[in-house]
Each structure stands twice: as structure tokens, then as C-alpha cells.
């Protein structure tokens, strides 16, 4: 095993789960997540010589995000994006505790649905913050946006998600 490979196994491979999780959420659970992650890991390995000292996880997740973006671009050229299907919303509009109700369902189906209706720029910051528990700085590195933008997208994304979960209005 080469030194580069050893370093890659030690530094990058531990973040494979994070890479896959992000890909699954970016693709809204799509089967293409596997291809995106494989492509991302390969690209990461190829450029690992040029990688110096920064935190590995944001770097790797930025590559996953880029791979997702280019896959999306390619797909757009072939087919129109499917519309979100938003029927059978089980949460009543006046449900006082949507959080509890979403938890009760256990499988996170409502949450999945609510998250998948969020525009990608909001969905990705919420996933990175809430599931990967990344700092604003690292999220900024993954998404290639200034920290201020991360903060405002998080605020907006959370408000949208809450509105989606409670079936309330969007202009919170």
C-alpha cells in the first residue's frame, strides 16, 4: 500500500459515511448517491497529493457536493426534473406539536418529505448543520459560500422546514 493510500485510508475513508449521507440527502434518497460517492472518493484520492492540512471532512463533502452538481447538470440535459409529490400530508395544519408527531411516526417519513421540498441551498446547510454537526466555517467551506450566507440560509431553511412540518405559511 502506498503512503498516499495509507494517508487516504486513515484521513479520508473514515468520512465515507458522511459522504454517503450527504449524497443521499442531496439526491433526495436517489439511487445515484452510490455513483456520486464513488466518483467523489476517486476524485478525492486523485487530488489527495494536492490536499494540505485542512480538515478532511469539509474538503471531502465539498467534492461530493460538486459531483452531485455535475451529475445534476448532466441529467438536466436529458430529462426534466420530476415535480415534488406533496399529497397525503398527515400532519394537520393546526397540529400544535408537529415535532412530536414526526417523531411518533418513527421512520421520519414526514421529515423526509419536508426536507425534500426544501430548495437545495437550504436543504444542504440544514443537513450539514443538524446531521453532520458542522461549524458555520466548515459549512461555508463545503458550500463555497461566505459564512454570512450560511447563517442566513440556515435561518431561512429552518423557518421553511418548520412551515413545511406544521403545514403553515412559508413567510415566517
Amino acid at each position, binding site marked *: 500500500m502506498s503512503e498516499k493510500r495509507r494517508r487516504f485510508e486513515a484521513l479520508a475513508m473514515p468520512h465515507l459515511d458522511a*459522504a454517503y449521507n450527504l449524497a443521499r440527502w442531496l439526491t433526495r434518497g436517489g439511487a445515484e448517491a452510490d455513483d456520486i460517492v464513488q466518483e467523489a*472518493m476517486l476524485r478525492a484520492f486523485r487530488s489527495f*497529493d*494536492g490536499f494540505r492540512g*485542512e480538515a478532511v471532512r469539509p474538503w471531502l463533502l465539498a467534492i461530493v457536493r460538486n459531483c452531485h452538481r455535475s451529475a445534476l447538470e448532466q441529467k438536466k440535459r436529458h430529462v426534466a426534473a420530476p415535480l415534488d409529490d406533496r399529497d397525503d400530508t398527515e400532519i394537520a395544519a393546526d397540529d400544535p406539536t408537529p415535532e412530536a408527531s414526526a417523531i411518533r411516526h418513527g421512520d*421520519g417519513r414526514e421529515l423526509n418529505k419536508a426536507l425534500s421540498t426544501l430548495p437545495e441551498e437550504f436543504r444542504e446547510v440544514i443537513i450539514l448543520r*443538524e*446531521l453532520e454537526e458542522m461549524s458555520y466555517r466548515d459549512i461555508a467551506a463545503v458550500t463555497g*459560500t*461566505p459564512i454570512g450566507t450560511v447563517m442566513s440560509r440556515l435561518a431561512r431553511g429552518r423557518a421553511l422546514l418548520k412551515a413545511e412540518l406544521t403545514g403553515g405559511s412559508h413567510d415566517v
Partner: protein
Amino acid sequence: MTCDESLKTQAYLDGELDAADALNAEAHLESCAECQRLAADHAGLKAVMAAAPYHRAPMALRTKITAALDAEEKTDANVIPLRAKPGFWLGAGSGAGGMAIAAVLAFLVFMPANNAMVADLADAHVRSLMGEHLIDVASSDHHTVKPWFAGHSDVSPPTEDFKADGFTLVGGRADYVHGSRAAVVVYRHGAHVINLFAWADRNARLPDTSSQDGYRMVFWKQKDLDLAAVSDVDPAELDRFVELVKKSQSRE
């Protein structure tokens, strides 16, 4: 409608504030009904997200990736590392063992230098955006900017205007990057500023790309220069800009 402090309150709830700012945020939270609502929503959402499935990589994918890396490594073994200049490796011993040791040493030696350089570039970029020192010579005419650098800088950076492609040359300045004089060519792309740094190549290894504080950097070497483009512009646009510069530079 929205409290001016709401982003700060959010940062507090996300554990992003230092002790002093956290105290201020707590004090504000006690008196602001809107931020209290925000805190309740924040906690509620956290509880909801705790139920969100975390998708772990399936074993089949792991196996596939390992196989792909094995294959990649085999092709790697027959290729001399891209950035390794022959002179650089002299004295590092010979044979594969020597190469491996040299690679590790290079990593250790250049890692802090690159971190400092990346931080330097981010700082220089932010300083320029604060209006402290964006431009010494304001001109969209590269016939004006080019000779200005001849008198004010050690290097002659590419100064072509890419207005037709959406990147307008607005001027240049002399700056310092990591202890050496650098020429900076300034472009605008919509509302965004792109700083193109150029300094004399001293055989240092550069990262391909990096980012700090939300600013992305693309590095490359061309002719006798080290170059870095720094901006918060969309990454795809920054890459397009870099390609334009590379092309113009190879025409020179």
C-alpha cells in the same frame, strides 16, 4: 418583523459564539419574545432532526470503492507525481522508499506554510473588500495596467480584460502574500470581486484549491509564476475565470 439580533441568537443556539458574545446573546434572549420563539423552534427542530435517518455507506459501496482505489493505485505506481520537479527530489535518496519518505517530508514541511499562505490570501482578499486597499491603478485597459506592474512589482502578471466573458478588469495593486511581494490583478464579476494574485515561483508546492472563511481559492503554476484566484463568486464561475486566465497567459 424579524429581530435584528436573530442571526446572532441563532449563532448562540448553534454554539458558534465565544463566551463574551454568548453572554450578550443570553441577555438579549431574556428580553426578546421573538428570539425566545426562535430558541423554542430551534430546540423543536433539533428534536425532529434527531429522528432523521443517517444514511451509512452500504458495504457493497465500500467494497466497490476499495476496488476502484486499488485499481487507481496500480496506475499511480507507474507515474511520477505530477508536481514533483526533478530538482526537488535530489538528495532525497533514490528508489521507491526514498520517494515515499520524501513525500511524507514534503507533506510535513509544506503543510504549515500552505496553511499560512491560504490564511494570508484570505486576509488580503478580505482587506481589499473592506475598501482599505483594493486598487493602486484603476483601469480597465490592460495596456495601462501591465506597465504599471513593471514599475511596482517583481513579476508581470496576466492582465487581459475578459469583459466579453463577464469578468471585467478593474485595476491592479501591489500586495504582500506570505512575506513576498505579489502583483494583484482585480476583476469584477457582477457584484463579486476576484483578486488574482501572482508571485514568483519558488518551487513551493501549492494546493489545487482551498477555501477559508467562505472564499474559494484556485492555485496554479504557469511559466515562472505561482497564481491564486480568490473570490466568493460561484465555484463554477471561478473555474471558468481561471481557465480564461490560463489561456490568455499561454498566448502571451
